[in-house]
């Protein structure tokens, strides 16, 4: 082996090693979560940690037996589903209008909406919900989640609508479609893949949201993030149950996002690259 080849080879080995370390760092918490969720109770507090054991689904069964976990899941699904659907019905026409008429001020407004710290909206929303006797009901939760589902719908979809040639809609007008019909029958179906991806991202952020649920939900409408947080505040921390619950919450989101990964960055960055 010549020295040049050797240097190249060492470079490749170091690169793969670094990649392995970095990947390990990002996967470590997921690894801990899954192993703890499957660990028999006796090994949970073992030190040094035990990684070879007979996996058990005991903790998952306990989570469902001891807590109304199914109703937490339903609450999360109803709130995130409604917030996403409503947000998109409102946000899609806005995205279309921005794409077709270059409404710069509307874009700026949406960016400002995304900047507002949610903590600062908790107090007015809590006081308003209290006044309307609606703490621990769905509507305030769904409405507050519009704060991010509308911006996600709008910002991600602007690009998709811009990609559709104006000529297609013009052809529809000539055939006698009204503009609304052209939007509904031409532009909307063509952006469907984008809408699905954007909806997945918006749903994920709504599903993950903790802050509004912490204040606006109660026993009847508790969502998954608040429920899993409750594991920590219980007197005796149940690490196995906590890990199982965390895995149950995270799993659907990770599956969703796996399919929408191409658009995730686009969604997070949306509006910034122009």
């Amino acid at each position, binding site marked *: 082996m010549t020295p040049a080849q050797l240097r190249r080879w060492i470079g490749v080995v170091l*690169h*793969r090693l670094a*990649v392995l370390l970095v*990947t390990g760092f*990002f*996967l470590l*918490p*997921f690894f*801990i*979560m899954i192993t703890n969720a499957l660990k028999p109770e006796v090994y949970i*507090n073992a*030190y040094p940690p035990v990684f070879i054991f007979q996996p058990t689904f005991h903790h998952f069964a306990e989570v469902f037996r001891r807590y109304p976990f199914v109703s937490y899941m339903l609450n999360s699904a109803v709130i995130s589903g409604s917030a996403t659907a409503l947000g998109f*019905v409102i*946000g899609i*026409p*806005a995205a279309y209008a921005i794409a077709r008429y270059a409404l710069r001020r*509307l874009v700026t407004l949406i960016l*400002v*909406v995304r*900047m*507002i*710290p*949610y*903590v*600062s*909206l*908790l*107090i*007015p929303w*809590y*006081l*308003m919900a209290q006044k309307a006797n609606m703490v621990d009901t769905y509507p305030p939760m769904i*409405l*507050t989640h*519009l704060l991010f589902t*509308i911006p996600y719908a709008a910002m991600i979809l602007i690009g998709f609508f811009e990609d559709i040639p104006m000529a297609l809609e013009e052809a529809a*007008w*000539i*055939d*006698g479609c*009204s*503009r*609304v019909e052209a939007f509904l029958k031409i532009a909307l179906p063509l952006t469907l893949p984008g809408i699905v991806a954007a909806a997945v991202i918006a749903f994920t952020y709504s599903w*993950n949201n903790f*802050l509004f649920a912490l204040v606006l939900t109660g026993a009847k409408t508790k969502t*998954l*993030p608040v429920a899993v*947080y409750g594991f920590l505040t219980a007197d005796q921390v149940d690490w196995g149950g906590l890990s199982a619950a*965390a895995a149950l*919450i*995270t799993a659907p*989101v990770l599956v969703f*996002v*796996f399919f929408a*990964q191409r658009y*995730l*960055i686009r969604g*997070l*960055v949306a509006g910034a*690259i122009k």
Partner: protein
Amino acid sequence: MNQPPEESGSGRIRYPERAEGLAYQAARGRPRAAWTALVDRHIRLLFPLPSLLAFLLVLGFPIGFMLYVSLHDWPISPRIPSIFLGVGNYAALLTNPRFWDSLWITFYFTALAVGGELVFGFAVALLIHREFRGRGLVRVALIMPMAATPVAMSLIWNMMMEPSLGMLNYLLSFVRAPRLLWAADPRWAVPSLALIDIWFWTPFIALIISAGLQTIPEEIVESARLDGATALSLFRHITLPLVRAHVVMAVILRTIPALKTFDHIFVITGGGPLRASETLNLYTFLEGFEFFHMGYSSALALTLTLIILVVSALLARLRAREWSY
């Protein structure tokens, strides 16, 4: 269907006018309602209208209401009357050392987190810029922290940072490093939380910079190599200037959310120990929902909003300068 376009004298295709289309539809027995025409004329206004109304309801009105609350001593129970204080709450917060402490902690956390994410994220971007087997899988691994439920992952990190049984101290024991108390130690609380933030958001910066690296033309790098540029000077004089815009954008996009970080700070330290990690966000929340000082907390919340808008405006100007170059 409609008549085909006719050849006109000049050889250009003449498309039928919209009116002809309408006439055609009318002939088929489908008269157009007057309101459809009205809607058509005002699409530019009507399509954004629902979102404007929604923002007014979920954001505009609450902010206005909060401004009103912030001028009062406002108890959480609706049965106790509120007392008008004027700017009293604002005067109180400006003279409260706890406010200034939390402001400092907010910026300290943001600097550590975003700084770490930028350096680490750049390194990761360079690592995955190279072609290797399994690169797609590494990208998926990078997406996962960004999408996973923050509260759930914070609880796992809390478990990993447990001083006596946790995974992090176990890993440290391999390099014979002393055990740390992590977030339970007032001196280490903010760095520990920044480490968790780095875990959550480094991939975001890495993927943006990676997109930037892909825009660098291969020929430039090649010719610099032929001219004998070392890896270091290649990085300094070619890579860095060419992805500068992406770097600036990534930093802007992370700084604002970092200033508002709530989930993992609340779950892991709740602002403690000894208020060591009490950011402005946490302080606002605690005043409102632990001590039930709605008026004072509203004043804090508006101050926080103002700070974030000012920082955003400053960052936007920075970006405008970057862009023009």
